[in-house]
């Protein structure tokens, strides 16, 4: 069996290109400047693609086509490679998140402790299926593989705050609070 083709870059950790390959983004959006800083921090190394995409997603909230093309130019990679990599990993998203995000852990420990019922109750309360965002942009409902907090299963994350031993009723109450008070 032949070894697969290798990413074309020297692995010596020092040879990142320093020239600014990307033109400034025509929109003048200041976030592209911050993305430039991220590219620079990784010395425009092609093997830092995933890290750069993570920075881009933090800045923009999602990965739009023009952000992906900007990254491709910045790292001198074919856009197909950038798109292929971005779509491979679950953490990258191409649609905007809602104001609030509720993530239900569906790991094995949470599963045996009733995560499916919690998820069903939340789908009911928010009116959206897992993985979707409400049309009004208020809430995104997501699932996670395993958050590694199995000792306190079942686990639900409300806007980044991890809560353990959650009941379906408590989870529903939490998201109903969001719906009642959109500014919180």
């Amino acid at each position, binding site marked *: *069996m032949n*070894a*697969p083709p*290798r*990413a074309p*870059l020297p*692995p*010596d*950790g020092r040879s990142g290109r320093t020239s600014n390959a990307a033109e400034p983004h025509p929109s003048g959006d200041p976030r592209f400047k911050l993305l430039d800083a991220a590219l620079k921090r990784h010395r425009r*190394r*092609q*093997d*830092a*693609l*995933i*890290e750069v*995409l*993570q920075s881009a997603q933090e800045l923009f909230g999602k990965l739009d086509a023009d952000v992906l093309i900007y990254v491709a130019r910045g790292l001198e990679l074919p856009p197909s*490679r950038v798109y*292929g*990599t971005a779509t*491979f*990993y*679950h*953490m*990258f998203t191409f649609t905007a998140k809602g104001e609030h995000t509720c993530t239900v852990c*569906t*790991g*094995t*420990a949470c*599963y*045996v*402790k009733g995560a499916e019922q919690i998820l069903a109750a939340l789908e009911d309360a928010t009116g959206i299926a897992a993985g979707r965002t409400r049309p009004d942009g208020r809430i995104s409902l997501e699932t*996670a*593989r*395993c*958050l*590694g*907090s*199995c*000792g*306190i*299963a079942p*686990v639900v994350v409300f806007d980044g*705050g*991890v*809560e*353990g031993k959650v009941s379906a009723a408590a989870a529903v109450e939490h998201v109903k609070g969001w719906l009642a008070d959109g500014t919180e």
Partner: protein
Amino acid sequence: MEPSDLDAIAERERASAKPRRIRVCSAAGCLSAGARSVRIGLEDAIAQGGLADRVEVSDVGCMRLCCEGPLIQDDPGGTMYKRVRPEQAPAIVAAFDAPAAEVDQADPKSAFFARQFSIVLQNSGVVEPERIESAVALGGYRALHHAIREMTPAQVVQEVTASGLRGRGGAGYPTGLKWATVAKMPAGRKFVVCNADEGDPGAFMDRSVLESDPHRVLEGMAIAAYAVGADQGYLYVRGEYPLAIQRLEKAIKDAKRLGLLGTGIFDSPLNLRLDVRIGAGAFVCGEETALIASIEGGRGTPRPRPPYPAESGLWGEPTLINNVETFANIPAIIGKGAAWFASIGTERSKGTKVFALAGKIRNAGLVEVPMGLSLREIVEEIGGGSPEGRPIKAVQTGGPSGGCIPAEHLDTPVDYESLARLGSIMGSGGMIVMDDTTDMVDVAKYFMKFCMDESCGKCIPCRAGTVQLHGLLERIGGGRGDRTDLAKLESLCDMVKATSLCGLGQSAPNPVLSTLRFFRSEYESRLEDRSSEAAPATNSPRG
């Protein structure tokens, strides 16, 4: 940096310690239970009581009984408090001579703690993960110095081989053999990689080790780099573990500052640059060739082996890939000797194993036990049985690659071979307890859905086979299957197992096969349901 410098750091650490120290668990489980506000409460209580010169609060790692968090421990005295609330802080601080009676206590002498044996977790819950001085004061980096100064690389490999240590990521490949393969490759660029892509749902051992004692892992990697002749390494950590990533990055920075990583470690010719790489959420990246592709910045798809990464890994160079727990065992093996390590455990499975005990179990948390202990001792004595007193039906080990061991086999000793004989695997250490309310066909479907979603799509047996298997399980689970479906399920399991490219597909049928083996009646009763309904057979509505 010399051992005397390490001693000096340790001495300063001891001299600056206050007579009393209250340790607060700052690992992920306790943090989500509110450990941060407990810590603030304790500090306020100390300040208000004017005790700042006598009592201090320190952030430590996992104290193991995760289901009862936040946990704190008083030192000296050793009283461990559980489910602490911030308003209880003044009472705890005031309790000098006797424990604060009004706060719930965990008994460190109970079976959950007393039956454990620690190598990997020796300093977990004691050492401060964000302070390298604390790790050094507890003996950190002494084994690295010993290896570099007193041993040749070949002797280090020999010592690891003699210890009998086997890979803790799941497959149990002899670690010494892997090291020897990389060491034997011609001198040149080589890499060490720590696989911290703990993807098995229900497993959190590696997360706890990284959050609790990151320097132990770094020291193990540095010893490995010396033994195999590598000068660069990566830790590939799941993106879902932000705290572990943050602590690792700080640990690497601190170790570099003290000259324990970087250029000229311990003034020897050994150089080692370590970088953290963050996984972006793909279970298949736990497979070593997929992990390599991901570190190189591409799609994390596996490739056929051979060549094994030990010969041709990162950028085609020889690469040593070990799991977090494997590396964490190394300092103890070098420090205390292979013979000591080999005296623990069984004939073919040496040392200890860390398990993440969760599910329908009273004492959910982190457990480190000598290999060879029976599942019953782990589940019933250490774990305390099921919380509502319901009968335990099965124990699941190995996650989506493993199997369900039924209650009648609970006396099986935990070692690689015994678990394999039961159609399960040691796995990375997730251990999920299920009681009689758990539906085993649904468990099989749950894991198959996981593998179906996580299949990378490169090879057809896994990409299409998992979808078909999931469809069959939906059909049987929904009472719409017949005997031919069951036969199809079994033959398709064999096909996917035999022909998939990587471990994900090869092991994806395991949960189905093991539930079929031990809980076949649950499948068959669904078939009978169908015939009693006398509904005409229809084509499978696949879900």
